[in-house]
């Protein structure tokens, strides 16, 4: 395992171990090929064709829009939207907290609705529109919710913040920000270990009452 840098989560642990199914598939595809046509396969192995065969089995093409930009990718069916955003598209604003749908740090919008990207398979967003925290600001101009989080100190360490903001924007759009009680209930899918909740509620209330377009 790689040594962990300070302040980074152990995402390196996500990498497949040596004896992964991928390797098994690569090897077995090669063995099958050797059994069928030894001469051709030997040549194919020299050219690393076996790896390409294995990849063709494992990966699927997807097209989807992220923050207004059309993306065409090749993904493993088991790759989550969260991992695709972070690892393949370098959109690291969306955070991996628990990775099991329990914390909300990975919240993004799919076709305008907030979802947990850690439990969303990439193959299932084919043809859809995804918005991440990077897609909220207009150039240098922050989104009103981003401004409000800054003004009200809606965070301490900031790790849950992208998910909080994506959820907060959805909370207002859904019409679930009409009182403090309602905001607290409809923001319950986003956990903040620093306990910035009162300030987060204040930020949302200000944006809601300010009548900003969100």
């Amino acid at each position, binding site marked *: 395992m790689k040594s962990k840098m300070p302040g980074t989560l152990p995402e390196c642990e996500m990498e497949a171990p040596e004896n992964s199914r*991928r390797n098994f598939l690569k090897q077995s595809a090669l063995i099958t090929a050797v059994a069928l046509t030894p001469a051709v396969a030997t040549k194919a192995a020299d050219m690393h064709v076996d790896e390409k065969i294995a990849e063709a089995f494992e990966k699927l093409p997807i097209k989807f829009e992220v923050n207004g930009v059309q993306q065409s990718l090749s993904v493993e069916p*088991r790759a989550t939207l969260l991992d695709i955003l972070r690892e393949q598209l370098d959109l690291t604003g969306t955070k991996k907290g628990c990775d099991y749908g329990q914390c909300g740090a990975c919240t993004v919008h799919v076709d305008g609705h907030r979802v*947990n990207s850690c*439990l*969303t398979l990439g193959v*299932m967003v084919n043809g859809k529109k995804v918005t991440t925290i990077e897609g909220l600001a207009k150039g240098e101009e922050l989104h009103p919710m981003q401004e409000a989080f800054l003004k009200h100190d809606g965070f301490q360490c900031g790790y849950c913040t992208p998910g909080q903001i994506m959820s907060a924007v959805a909370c207002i759009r859904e019409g679930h920000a009409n009182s403090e009680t309602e905001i607290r209930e409809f923001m319950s899918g986003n956990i903040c270990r620093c306990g910035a909740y009162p300030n987060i509620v204040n930020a949302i209330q200000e944006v809601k009452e300010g009548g900003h377009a969100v």
Partner: protein
Amino acid sequence: MKQFQYIRPATQQNVLDAITKPGTKIIAGGTNLVDLMKRGVTAPDKLVDINHLPLKSITPSKTGLLIGALALNSVVSENTLVLQKQPLLSMALKAGASPQLRNMATVGGNMMQRTRCSYFYDTTMPCNKREPGTGCGALEGYNRMHAIFGTSPQCIAVHPSDMCVGLAALDAVVVIAGKKGDRRIPFTEFHRLPGDHPETDNHLAPGELIVGVEIPDNNFSQHSYYLKVRDRQSYAFALVSVAAALDISGGVIRNARLAMGGVAHKPWRLFDAEKSLIGKPATEASFKHAAQIAMQGAKAYEYNAFKLKMAPGTITEALKHAAGLA
């Protein structure tokens, strides 16, 4: 997560053809299945994505309300017809999970979710539900979240759904499609008790597909309530929950429906308690008596004895709310 093959058959018939093979699982919202696959609790060879099937609609039928299996939990909870005819279902849905998860989770998927028993989730622990024959880690373990009704020596896990508690109370019917034809089963008979086969959560046969649920019209919409008691105010599984529905006329209870969550391997319908309420005045005394009846046969384990007090209290409170007394 173990690699798998992903397919998206074009039609319902193609889905039925695809799901007959062992090792194949259906994926809809994926909120529970992807979680279980990440943890290695389940490792299907093939996932059949059914999200594009036309099973999302919520429509009035001749006798009730028909809700498609792929209707999202968030959509159902805010649907005008549901709010008018079956507000109890909306309340139960809103008590479950988080807004993000409800935006993903479907009605059919909610019914098919597995228990959140920590011994089921921890692949280093024994669990008859995950791996039949290995024993039950919860029986002598930390069983605070576990069942007090309908347990077996093999399994004391609870069904985690709130929606299902509401549907059980409302006499819903599950509409199922299969290669041998369609069938309908009462919601209360869909999930099963653990017995000697805790690995089987329900009576959906291999190769069958839930296409929807139908809720018959009733006179409960003015007097229904879903009360969920949990460790934090939102976004937590139930310690105990109660779906209560009353038909009250002139202060007298004409009809009643009661179901509990967090107490059994299936949504726990309280038939005897319901009967005890019919013809009685809608008062706290009637409700307390019904709660007492509901608790007959309850059995606690080392860490969940608190549920023996919490459950009747929750029943009484839910009924008071339903009757407008709280």
